[in-house]
């Protein structure tokens, strides 16, 4: 029983990180109807900025360093969107996918050149010593995991409030529902796109800062996280923020439970080497029954 509880807690706290990155993906999808395959790398770069401010150069307080890193990545995101993405028609998927893959290569290589590929330890935003936990029915809920879950909750709240209670959020929803009409009623679409990318990159960086103490910071850190986040976002539906949060959590939970229990059975022991399998199967099953994800808007075609 306590083992099950432990696995659920671990799964949820990993899932929360995927959820954070998945929400970032959805924000960009809602703004520009494209999937940003460079999201993980941009987030990784933000994680390194955090490292610079918190450890390498300035030794600022961790929260301040995380905040500065988020602001700087937001600026980076705005620049990338303005220079590299806006010239293209997002309805034509292939060029934009290629652009984000190009950014992927460049950011990864530049980070590797500046900070090399050695994995390095990074301080956690939350206390993460061996005895920093609350005991729940025999399972250990580390402050670290709790902090990640709380961060996800806070982030979701912030995004929800901005989108539903501010004028900017109203404009954002208008643009994501119909760009042309929004432009006609006088919404500055460009600013909304910038806002979407800024928010996504800032939150992506938050995800990287949260995951870095667990995975160790290195330029290749975010690639698996991105795959899980993609699975989570597609599970929930690419244009649903709540769906992305739930999708990320489900992927994390599934991974922890399947890998935890199934690998005890002999025939499945090699599943340990295939951590990507459960989310992939989940994704294919969900998309088979609901081609727009669990909570996504159905795509309707007009002749």
């Amino acid at each position, binding site marked *: 029983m306590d083992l099950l509880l432990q696995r659920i807690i671990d799964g949820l706290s990993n899932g929360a990180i995927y959820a954070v990155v998945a929400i970032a993906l959805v924000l960009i999808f809602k703004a520009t109807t494209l999937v940003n395959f460079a999201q993980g790398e941009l987030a990784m770069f933000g994680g390194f900025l955090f490292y610079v401010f918190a450890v390498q150069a300035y030794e600022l307080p961790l929260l301040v360093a995380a905040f500065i890193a988020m602001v700087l990545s937001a600026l980076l995101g705005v620049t990338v969107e303005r220079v590299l993405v806006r010239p293209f028609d997002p309805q034509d998927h292939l060029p934009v*996918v*290629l652009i984000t893959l190009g950014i992927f290569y*460049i950011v990864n290589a530049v980070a590797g050149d500046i900070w090399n590929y050695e994995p390095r330890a990074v301080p956690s935003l939350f206390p993460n010593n061996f005895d920093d936990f609350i005991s729940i029915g025999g399972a250990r809920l580390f402050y670290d995991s709790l902090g990640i879950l709380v961060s996800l909750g806070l982030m979701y709240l912030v995004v929800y409030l901005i989108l539903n209670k501010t004028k900017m959020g109203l404009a954002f929803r208008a643009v994501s529902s119909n760009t042309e009409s929004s432009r006609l009623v006088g919404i500055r679409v460009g600013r909304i796109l910038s806002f979407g990318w800024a928010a996504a990159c800032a939150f992506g960086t938050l995800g990287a800062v949260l995951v870095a103490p667990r995975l160790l910071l290195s330029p290749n850190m975010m690639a698996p996280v991105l795959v899980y986040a993609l699975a989570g976002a597609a599970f929930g539906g690419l244009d649903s923020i709540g769906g992305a949060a739930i999708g990320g959590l489900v992927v994390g939970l599934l991974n922890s439970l399947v890998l935890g229990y199934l690998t005890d059975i002999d025939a499945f022991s090699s599943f340990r*080497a*295939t951590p990507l399998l459960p989310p992939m199967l989940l994704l294919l099953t969900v998309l088979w029954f609901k081609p727009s994800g669990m909570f996504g808007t159905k795509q309707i075609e007009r002749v």
Partner: protein
Amino acid sequence: MALVVQQGSAQHRTLKLAFFGGLALIAIVLPFILPDFQVGRLNRAIWIATAVLGLNLVVGYAGLLALCQSAFIAIGAFICATLVHEHGWDYWMTIPAAMFGSFLFGVLLGVPALRIKGLYLAMATISFAAAFPALTKLEMGGIARRTGGANGLKINEEIVPTGWAESLGFAAEEPFRYRYFFILFLAVLAFVGVHNLLKSRPGRAIVAIRDNETGAAVSGVNLREVKVINFGLSAAIGGLAGAMSAVNTGFVAETSFTFVLMVDLLVALVIGGVATIQGPIWGAIVVVFVREIAKNMSIPLGFYTLDGNGPLSQAIFGLILIGVVFFAPRGIAGLVQKTLPKIVQIVPTPPGGGTTKQTPSATPDLELSAQ
């Protein structure tokens, strides 16, 4: 001033003969001038071009972002290697088996996957491509035993020139030269086959679905059937490419078929030119050889020098990629199609067989690729 040639005239036929004859001559001479390891790299370019040709059927001509070609390549490569290694087949006999196996996998995956649309399909298939290498290491059902698991399968000794080829002077010590001709032969078959397919009724149906799905259905195209079979065919060509890669290196391991390969194929497709027959060839050359050149480049950017000799060769490659999408959105094939009419213009024969001046129309290839 451009040379104006009438389509189907003797001059046109001579030009065509000279062009393809020249290409064939280069293809035959090339492996004898290059050092052995460069021939191996050339072989890699050929099988990558073939894989991209298959990818092009789905991504280019059918307009579906299905990004799991690397998995089909792996299936073909493993079928080839395991038949040679475990069952003692001759390597050339495994080629149809590899294609058929990949075709079946493609159809099996295509039936559910093609319900999914647009970027969802891209995400589902790319996560499949990412998970696939690990799948080959599963202990269930003897999968790991047949694929060699993490160690891979070595079939290098089994791929030797057949008797008659040996008598032509192909030495076993320089294996890549013989393998080059074997691989090239298969690739030429694949390219001619796809070229002809696209000119036929089913080929036109594929393009019609891309351009207007409802319109195609109304005109009597069976959407589901055409889509799934097209997906299967693309997978079969991927499987062929996989078998070619197994023949080239004589070694198959899951680490060669990760989604890094998938990204390379996509990059090759776009740099070469989407929905063209020549595009995959250009793209494969760029992906295999420009990577090497990028390692010897350094681009000064004022305060920061992009030095290719290190991790930054990837950055230079990324810059090239973004540059192509910006400045040559239709790839190298697009550039060729734009510059070629300035050198040679092919004009259709006017009715009646006269030689009246007529404004040259676009070549059929151009019409196919125009979206």
